[in-house]
């Protein structure tokens, strides 16, 4: 008996040993954990009826208050905001049909669309708006942009279809905040029912209703037949996180995805030759820069910062490293967003830069440190190494420190006094001009514990102008102030301005009904695809 068993085993031993043991291990593991039922992919829908969007990042949550990142497409499919951005960079109605601000600038009234229902049947009313703001302010919710909502002092609901926000201080950009991804309106019933698990039960009013989320594989939603706006022409919307850029190129080529975001620059030219798809490069509301700690020598001197900017051949970096997929940056703002102005470029001139450094008292150069997290965007390390090279050419001693992002942030938010001569390589994306100028250049923000961009830059005149523009509601009066503030900042050259980023993305031909915003967010509208 035993012999036979052994012989049987002999035959199968090699084939099965590993597989069986793995299954045992896996079995033991899953027995120990509470039973979890993972829904299998739901009823097969023909690929014709499914619109697939792919980007690199797995969502951390599909709760709009929590899930902010490069996977906004699926959240935009499920949820609507009161207002939203259109392709021209304007704010247009969504769940609110109109809005107005009282003369004191503190009270914003939104008139809500009637007859709208959440996917769970709950009618959309002012109570849902209030519940959404309360949800964002709930300390137990890890809402990453909670800070932006602190100006809301009260949310009043005089009737079902009117909501009135009181803000302090007054803010002309309040409607823009309501267009943010984090301000999408969530079902109050779902919030009550699921509590802390709302991030797994996604109920909005969007064109698509949540279907399933298989972690690291896909999140999907089905067309909402009761949608208040133009109804999608596909039955299903799928977001697929594909971390490897080369694999994203593959799914675009094979048609396994209809729209692919964050394509690698090296592949764009080849993709443009492919039939059946269109590869695009559109300006992004995002800049690449180095943030110097400037409360102490040597970087506290404007001449030094100007010389550093002057010593870098930025056009050569854009051509050589970015393969042309970046835009020269001649603004302290973000070109393309409302209120951002361009100024005279700081021309590449290593000789003038060297003279300027000598004039500032550094004829023999200085020691500088650049902190960077390798691989945050395509080409980042090469760009910083090029900068290091250009600065070495004018006699500076530059060390590049590569570190993980958490450590980098700890450094960039530490007291600038403690790191003279150091700078941090970062990307900065901003949805609107005041958000950008305030956090980058207002002394109330640049040297405060906990802020990421703690350069210590401070110019009282700039502070005053930013205060002024932030309390000016008439755009015609506000623009000149914004221009003046930016002109002052441009003189100070508080940052090492590298370039503006572009969004590299591609779509299959025959797809329509969506926009890709300068923020890189995919916004589904009346989605359609030709099979």
């Amino acid at each position, binding site marked *: 008996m035993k012999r036979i068993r052994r012989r049987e*085993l002999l035959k199968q031993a090699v084939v099965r040993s590993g597989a069986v043991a793995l299954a045992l291990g896996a079995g033991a*593991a899953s027995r120990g954990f509470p039973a979890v039922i993972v829904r299998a992919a739901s009823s097969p829908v023909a690929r014709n009826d499914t619109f697939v969007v792919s980007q690199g990042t797995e969502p951390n949550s599909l709760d709009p208050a929590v899930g902010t990142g490069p996977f906004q497409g699926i959240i935009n499919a499920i949820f609507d905001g009161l207002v939203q951005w259109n392709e021209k960079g304007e704010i247009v109605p969504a769940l609110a049909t109109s809005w107005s601000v009282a003369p004191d600038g503190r009270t914003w009234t939104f008139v809500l669309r009637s007859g709208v229902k959440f996917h769970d049947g709950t009618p959309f009313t002012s109570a849902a708006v209030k519940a959404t703001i309360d949800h964002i302010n709930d300390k137990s919710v890890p809402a990453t942009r909670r800070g932006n909502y602190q100006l809301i002092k009260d949310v009043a609901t005089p009737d079902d279809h009117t909501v009135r926000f009181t803000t302090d201080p007054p803010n002309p950009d309040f409607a823009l905040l309501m267009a943010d991804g984090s301000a999408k309106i969530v079902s109050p019933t779902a919030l009550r029912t699921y509590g802390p698990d709302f991030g797994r039960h996604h109920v909005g009013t969007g064109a698509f209703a949540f279907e399933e989320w298989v*972690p690291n594989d896909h999140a999907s939603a089905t067309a909402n037949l009761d949608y208040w706006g133009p109804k999608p022409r596909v039955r299903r919307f799928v977001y697929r996180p594909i971390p490897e850029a080369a694999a994203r190129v593959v799914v675009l080529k094979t048609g396994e995805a209809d729209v692919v975001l964050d394509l690698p620059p090296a592949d764009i030219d080849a993709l443009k030759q492919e039939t059946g798809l269109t590869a695009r490069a559109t300006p992004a509301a995002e800049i690449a820069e180095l943030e110097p700690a400037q409360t102490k020598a040597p970087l506290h001197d404007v001449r030094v910062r100007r010389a550093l900017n002057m010593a870098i051949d930025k056009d050569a970096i854009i051509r050589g490293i970015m393969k042309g997929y970046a835009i020269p940056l001649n603004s302290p703002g973000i070109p393309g967003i409302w209120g951002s102005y361009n100024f005279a470029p700081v021309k590449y001139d290593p000789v003038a830069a060297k003279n300027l450094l000598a004039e500032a008292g550094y004829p023999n150069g200085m020691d500088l440190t650049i902190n960077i997290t390798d691989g945050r965007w395509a080409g980042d390390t090469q760009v910083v190494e090029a900068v290091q090279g250009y600065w070495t050419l004018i006699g500076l001693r530059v060390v590049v420190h590569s570190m993980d*992002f*958490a450590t980098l942030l700890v450094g960039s938010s530490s007291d600038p006094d403690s790191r003279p001569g150091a700078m941090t390589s970062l990307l900065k994306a901003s949805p609107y001009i005041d958000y950008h100028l305030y956090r980058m250049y207002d002394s109330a923000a640049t040297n405060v514990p906990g802020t990421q961009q703690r350069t210590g830059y401070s110019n009282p005149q700039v502070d005053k102008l930013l205060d002024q523009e932030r309390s000016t509601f008439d755009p015609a009066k506000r623009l000149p102030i914004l221009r003046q503030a930016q002109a002052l900042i441009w003189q100070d050259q508080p940052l090492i301005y590298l370039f503006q980023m572009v969004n590299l993305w591609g779509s299959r031909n025959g797809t329509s009904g969506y926009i890709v915003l300068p923020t890189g967010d995919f916004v589904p509208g009346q989605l359609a695809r030709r099979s």
Partner: protein
Amino acid sequence: MLRHIAGRVLWALPVVLGVSLIVFGILKMIPGDAAVVVAGTDATAADVQAIRHELGLDRPVYVQYALWLGRLARFDLGRSAVTRRPVSYEIATRVRPTAELAGSALGLAVAAGVVMGVTAATHQRSAWDAIASVGAALGVSMPIFWLGLMLMMTFSVDLRWLPSTGAGTTAQLILPALTLGAASTAIIARQVRSAMLEVLQQDYLRTAEAKGATRWAVVMRHAFRNAVIPIVTVVGLQLGYLLSGTVLTETVFARPGLGRLIVDSIRSRDVVVVQSAVMVLSITFIVVNLAVDVLYAYLDPRIRFD
């Protein structure tokens, strides 16, 4: 027999404990503050402090370790700091795809490796032998991400035979399994070849041939059976390689799995998830080695009495 098994199991326990200490220690030593990352960019110092307290990061290291071990023993793994889902959910949703991938890659490696190895050994210095040797050298040297992309380019983009990415269907398993299994196939083939060559020179095989046994019987019944112990050892060890290889394979092919969960969690400093997922993989590996040890005793009765 039972004594042999019991002894092996007892030996595995300190190994598990040692692994847990290493896993915990490494995650303590890597720089970066988990609380800062979890708190997000707009958090105040007070928020960060609150999160640090919530995660228990403000307590002495040995207390953190002891608490973690206690929770591990009760399978109370807590919640992910990033997704706020239970860690057990995060792991359970990934066990199956990883088991499928590693299992099929191993099955492939064993099947192809044994065939290649036996053929090469019995046809020494023939074309078969050369092909197997070159194939083995290639298999070992091709990095997973490169091989994966090449297979994708060929079978998904050019030929349109197979889906490139994702998980769920058998078709989606083929390319990742080939990619992950390539190196192990090569290693197993080489091991089978050398083990077989050694056995094939033995006198008793000449005797078997002399008594008129068929070539098949000589090779498979007399030779292979005696060559199987070192092969089983290599196969067991390969599972460790395969489990670590899933990290790259799952990333390239955008498959859900434990490997990718670990990479994502390391990136977002989701320490609780990293610790638990690495422990699951380590314990799997330990269990496999235990199984291999027990298997020896079945395969070779002499080992039971050592």
